[in-house]
């Protein structure tokens, strides 16, 4: 493949197809919503645009988890925290854009601060009236938290279940912290009642279309970045660390650095997803830090097929579509269905939907499986070192 030679081994035909579809959808879906008459069969209704815009953010979140779980073997049960932090950073910008239009009509302070009788803006809210600053924080805050967390965790060689548990503890601690009113993030109500973004009303059809397109673009960039990383020599090293960490050490590599880089990049991606999610749903509250949210991301990724880049995107779209249907039709059964799905996938489809697809293709194409030089995205083999 010529494209593969130009951009790197990670840009497999499958990744290229996914990129093309995401970009195409990112343009066509909003256009159809804005330009076509509702009677036209190709018209995408506004509720669907909002729903799928949200799913695109979830897909980016699942992709970010895949980078660390699928390729380096770090099962993060706290990725929702990075998503939520990115969301809060964007939410703070949106709050400051409300200005004097709030209930208490205070031009400086968001309503909840007036309600708490605060007289001035806390220092950590300064600067968020500027979009570029908020965007910088969307990248920096999750990235920095992941870097510091990873620095300590990976250096002290915490792995496996223990690592998963402390990632879960991290998001839980943040959940409790953000629930507190005196933290200055709106307590359990969170941040909401947004008015506009970059001067455009958030509810307007045009803004919603643009946010959808931005989410698709972010997802496409995420896919391209992951494909480039995974296709590089470093990507091979990630898989080596995942499958035989101690072997890499005796070859002179430092697995803690390999993990730290992936974990930080992944957290930044999750933060971007959260930042795009918040203006589309119109609210961010501490519930986004709930451990259950992070676990759902793991389910999406597992369902689609981890270590495949494209799989987690499919998983996020499918599982969330199912969730929307369930919560409408059988609201009480969703959690059971989700749990059942996870058990089913773990037992019968360890490589997810894409793994199943590959198997089926191999069989029908009668390829010699033994010497097949498979893509760098091979799903993990459970192979402990030594």
């Amino acid at each position, binding site marked *: 493949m010529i494209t593969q030679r130009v951009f790197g081994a990670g840009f497999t035909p499958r990744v290229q197809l996914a990129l093309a579809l995401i970009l195409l959808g990112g343009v066509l879906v909003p256009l159809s919503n804005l330009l076509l008459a509702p009677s036209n069969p190709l018209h995408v209704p506004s509720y669907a645009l909002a729903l799928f815009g949200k799913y695109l953010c979830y897909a980016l979140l699942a992709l970010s988890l895949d980078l660390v779980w699928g390729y380096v073997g770090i099962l993060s049960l706290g990725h929702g925290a990075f998503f939520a932090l990115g969301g809060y950073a964007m939410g703070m910008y949106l709050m400051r854009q409300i200005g004097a239009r709030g209930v208490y009509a205070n031009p400086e302070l968001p309503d909840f601060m007036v309600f708490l009788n605060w007289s001035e803006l806390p220092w950590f809210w300064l600067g968020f009236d500027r979009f570029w600053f908020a965007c910088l924080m969307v990248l920096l805050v999750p990235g920095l938290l992941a870097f510091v967390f990873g620095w300590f965790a990976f250096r002290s060689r915490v792995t496996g279940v223990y690592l998963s548990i402390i990632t879960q503890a991290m998001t839980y601690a943040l959940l409790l912290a953000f629930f507190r009113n005196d933290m200055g993030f709106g307590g359990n109500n969170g941040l909401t009642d947004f008015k506009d973004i970059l001067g455009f009303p958030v509810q307007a059809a045009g803004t919603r279309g643009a946010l959808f397109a931005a989410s698709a673009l972010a997802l496409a960039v995420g896919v391209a970045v992951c494909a480039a990383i995974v296709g590089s*020599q470093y990507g091979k090293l990630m*898989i*080596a660390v995942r499958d035989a960490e*101690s*072997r890499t050490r005796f*070859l002179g590599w430092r697995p803690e650095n390999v993990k730290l880089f992936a974990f930080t990049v992944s957290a930044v991606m999750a933060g971007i997803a959260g930042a795009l999610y918040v203006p589309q749903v119109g609210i961010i509250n501490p519930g986004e830090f709930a451990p259950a949210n992070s676990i759902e991301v793991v389910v999406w990724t597992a369902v689609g097929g981890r270590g495949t880049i494209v799989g987690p995107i499919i998983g996020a779209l499918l599982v969330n579509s199912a969730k929307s249907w369930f919560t409408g039709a059988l609201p009480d059964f969703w959690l059971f269905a989700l749990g059942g799905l996870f058990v089913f996938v773990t037992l019968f489809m360890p490589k997810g939907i894409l793994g199943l697809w590959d198997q089926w293709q191999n069989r029908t194409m009668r390829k010699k499986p*033994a010497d097949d030089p498979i893509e760098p995205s091979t799903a993990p083999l459970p192979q402990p070192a030594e």
Partner: protein
Amino acid sequence: MTTKAGTILYLNGVSVSFDGFRAINDLSLVLDKGEMRAIIGPNGAGKTTMMDIITGKTRPDKGEVFFDGNIDLTRHDEPGIANLGIGRKFQKPTVFESHTVEDNIRLSLKGERSVFAALFAKNSVADDRRITEILETVRLDGRRDALAANLSHGQKQWLEIGMLLAQDPKLLLVDEPVAGMTDAETAETARLLKDIAREHSVIVVEHDMHFVRELDVKVTCLHEGSVLAEGPLDHVAADQRVVEVYLGR
């Protein structure tokens, strides 16, 4: 006491205990530059633990461990020691199963070991040639694109030796390289190691006496964490204590 100058490896009075059990007990061992040494000893003698100490996996409770004359290995960790020039083949072959044979060698090639170097690394012609050379040496040139997981046990052992060669270390520690090999493969491996020993210092741990005889080098017999006998194989094998240790099991 021997002097450290001119030695590639110098262990003096090394001890290590696990929960009160002395796995290595006042062990002293000196390897000259360019020397190949075979280490024998019954199960649990401490052979693998000795390699763990040299490669930084286990910290000794006491004693000196010096590499290449005056480098104190107890002050370095595993990647640091690997980059100083010590390569290790594990008792249970450990290769990267979901990578191809070629990529296993590529990840081992001597070079800069930083994340950013790896991110932007380009495959050079020189690297490709070196990989071909190594694969020919370990008789895996026909399996270059095969997944390591699909290799036979013996081939995995060879691949791991190939990875060692790719690191281009000064000292190779090879733990039971012929375990699970056929007689033909064993003979081939002995030839391979003797080849390697021409340009490197090597320590080979092995139970297979035919193999050790093939190597035709000085032998050290470990028992209960210290040296029981040292010298030519015939001399060591004739030692009454060595015979007792092997028969007394």
